């Protein structure tokens, strides 16, 4: 992809190889999350993913780095790399220790499905054709792979907390789609999505605790009994 590499180099502060390494890291962290059995490890992975994503707007930005951009990047980094993992960790600590439960879809199968999602995203990206913003083509496949990984986590995991990881990873994917447009005001849209997710994480942190009190378990299987 020489043209994209050129365009990327022209647009971003980072060269195309560096960007691809970062995006590759994100995809790898997605796969690790799908493979992870222990929740504590998952939280760390989410923190790592959040740290990379939080810094991305700064890395991608081509022009002069003004104070506003730095402030926003700092805010993203704070929320994604620190605040959300802390909320998760707090919730995790509050729950009594439980042995890892068997997911609906096994870990190996989840990783395979995640890889399938990545291939599907690459195919979708190839169908997309030229975009006005060349960075978008580069970000598209990893972003969608992350969204799919998040959805897979929600669908495949049995524990409510693990499903929360899924929502966060999905949000990371949506965020990643928006990063190429970080130069414009679209970043405010990103911020609003992020704030939504953060509130959701807080609410879910509380809800998860209540669910545990009501059901004495975090298995979402038990929720089936409240359907009509």
């Amino acid at each position, binding site marked *: 992809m020489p043209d994209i590499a050129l365009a990327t180099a022209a647009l971003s502060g980072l060269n195309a190889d560096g960007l691809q390494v970062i995006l590759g890291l994100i995809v790898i962290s997605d796969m690790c999350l799908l493979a992870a059995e222990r929740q504590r490890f998952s939280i760390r992975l989410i923190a790592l993913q959040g740290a990379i994503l939080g810094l991305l707007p700064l890395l991608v930005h081509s022009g002069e780095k003004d104070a506003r951009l730095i402030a926003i990047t700092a805010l993203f980094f704070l929320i994604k790399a620190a605040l959300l993992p802390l909320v998760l960790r707090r919730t995790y600590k509050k729950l009594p220790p439980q042995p890892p439960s068997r997911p*609906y879809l096994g870990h190996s199968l989840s990783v395979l499905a995640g890889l399938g999602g990545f291939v*599907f995203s690459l*195919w*979708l990206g190839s*169908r*997309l054709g030229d975009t006005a913003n060349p960075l978008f083509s580069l970000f598209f496949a990893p972003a969608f792979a992350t969204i*799919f990984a998040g*959805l*897979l986590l*929600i*669908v*495949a*995991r049995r524990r409510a907390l693990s*499903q929360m990881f899924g929502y966060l990873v999905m949000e990371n994917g949506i965020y990643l789609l928006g990063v190429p447009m970080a130069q414009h005001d679209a970043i405010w849209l990103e911020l609003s999505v992020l704030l939504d997710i953060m509130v959701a994480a807080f609410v879910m942190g509380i809800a998860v605790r209540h669910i545990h009190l009501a059901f004495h378990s975090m298995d*979402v*299987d038990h*929720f*089936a*009994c*409240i*359907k009509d």
Partner: protein
Amino acid sequence: MLPYYCVLLLLFGGGLISLALGSRAASLRAASFSMCAASALGLAATLPLLLDGASISGALPLPLPLGACSFTVDPLSAVFLLPVFVLSGISGLLLPSRMLLLCQENPVASGSAGNAHYGKHGFFCCVLSAGMVLTLIASDAVLFLIAWEVMSLVPFFLISPRDKDAAERHAAWMYLVAAHLGALPLLYLFAALTTESGSTGFFAFAAFEGWRNAGLLFLLALVGFGTKAGLVPLHAWIPEAHSCAPAHVTILLSGAILKLGLYGIMRVLTLIGLGDVWWAYALMGAGAFSGILAILLGLVQPGMKRTLAYSSSENIGIICLALGGAMLAMHLQAPTAAALLLAGVFLHIWSHAAFKSLLFLGANAVKDSTHTDAFRLLGGLQKRIPLTGSCMALGSAAIAGIPPLNGFMSELLIYAGFAAGSHAVHGREEAFLFWGGFFMLGAIAGMALFAFTRLFGLGFLGAPRSDAALEVREPCRLMQGALLFLAGLCVLMSLCGALLYTALTPLLHSFARRLSPAFFLPDGALEFGSSILLYYALTGLAITALFSLALLLRKRVVAVNGTAQSPTWDCGYTAPSARMQYSGGSFSHSLALLLRPLIRSRITKPAIQGLFPAEQEARISTPDWSALLWEKLIFHPVELLSDYAKGLQAGLVNIYILYIFITLILALAWALGWS
């Protein structure tokens, strides 16, 4: 329009007061009063309009999301408003006593819980009447549909007032399904009318010309309104609902609501015009099919109310047959035939409302004291309840088309119309169609005679077949009054046929002009019908006089010779018993055998073997095959699908998100992959 607004206000207000009074018996009285008052007011407002042939319009500045709150009462509405008001009045009058009786009958419902039904029942009775009036006076598609829905849905709450009986609940659900399915084509119909004409008003529809899919619109109206009117094979709800509902609701269902289906068809015809000639064929075909099949199914029913319910479908069939004939006559420029047939249609609508209500009230009166209406348990009722029996005899004679009563009066006009039509197009192929209609009507009337001979003979003559029949009592005074009133109405209508015809003349003119502006009914064409009815009334008087004379003579002879009493069926048997009488199945057995392809009776014959065979059972049952067909074609597959769809609702969030996931992937693949 002020009187009609007052009628609606009275009905809705009365309903709300009844609801507010709740479990007290006063709630029923409030509903009763408002229904009676509204009926009286409505009749006083409608009669002059009908006689003058005038139309009045009005609008209320009420905000509707679409359309407008506009009302019109034209002669066509007025014709249908009359039975609605008369029957609402009778229904309202009977409401308190019927409801109290119903709740006393059922020990479970007679406690505090039973009384809780009073307010709701009164409310829904009032709303049903209001819905019917609103349907008839609405002149805006949206308002009409709202009124139609109100009128369609409310009987669901009235069919089973105690909500205790499984059969009643089934009937109510069946009604609800039919009402919903019937409303679907109407939504399409009015949406199409609105889209093409660019307005929701009936006046705009009527002024618009050049409907693109007029044939489709007509078919939608025929199916949608035909479901409400109970045309076979769309009638499946009628036998269930009519046989389960209490008396004061049944008369509204059979006497008024079915007619609203006809009103709908006629109203749409006035809006989109006479159309192609195949419309007339379709209507005649649907009417003949409905008439023949319904009365055939009616004459093999095991109970009185079910027979009456099927006969309602049959009469609607007759009306559609005649309406189709009138449209054909208009196409062929045969004004006399058109006038006779149209007059027959409207007179039959009135006649049917009168005698069918009479018969349903009578059948309910029998059921109240015997707790059954099955022929195999009844018999010999005439001796025990002479008043109800005589009213039923009169009603049966009227509906079976025996002169000099009102049933044959309207049918005579239809016969004459078909004959005049065939005469007018003498030598052309269409003459066969008119003759076909003539003979179809003859066949239907003949079978109706058979069915009602069976109904009255098995129920009221002979000897009682069970102890239940011995318990029969005359109904309360109010009910007796209602029976006498309706019986009187039948007699009066047959004597005043010519007057009724005169009252209908403005409607005939306007209806024909609305259908086809080019068509004109000359006075000569109208006079013919009037003279027929005059002769009919005179002949009727003569027959009545002869009959009275014969009765007098008989009385005198009996007085001279004295009377001797002996058991029924005492002709040479040593031990006659009630079991020797015809049963419902055996009476219609020969006809059922003859017309087996149409009736599809299932006969289980006992296999008698050996010299001393054990006790065996023979059974003749006639399930309604058209209803079964619907069940097989629609309801069963839908049930299967619904059962399968229940599996989709697993109750697991994961699965629900998986659905979103799959949808997302498919949507993306579709949007990006194949675009």
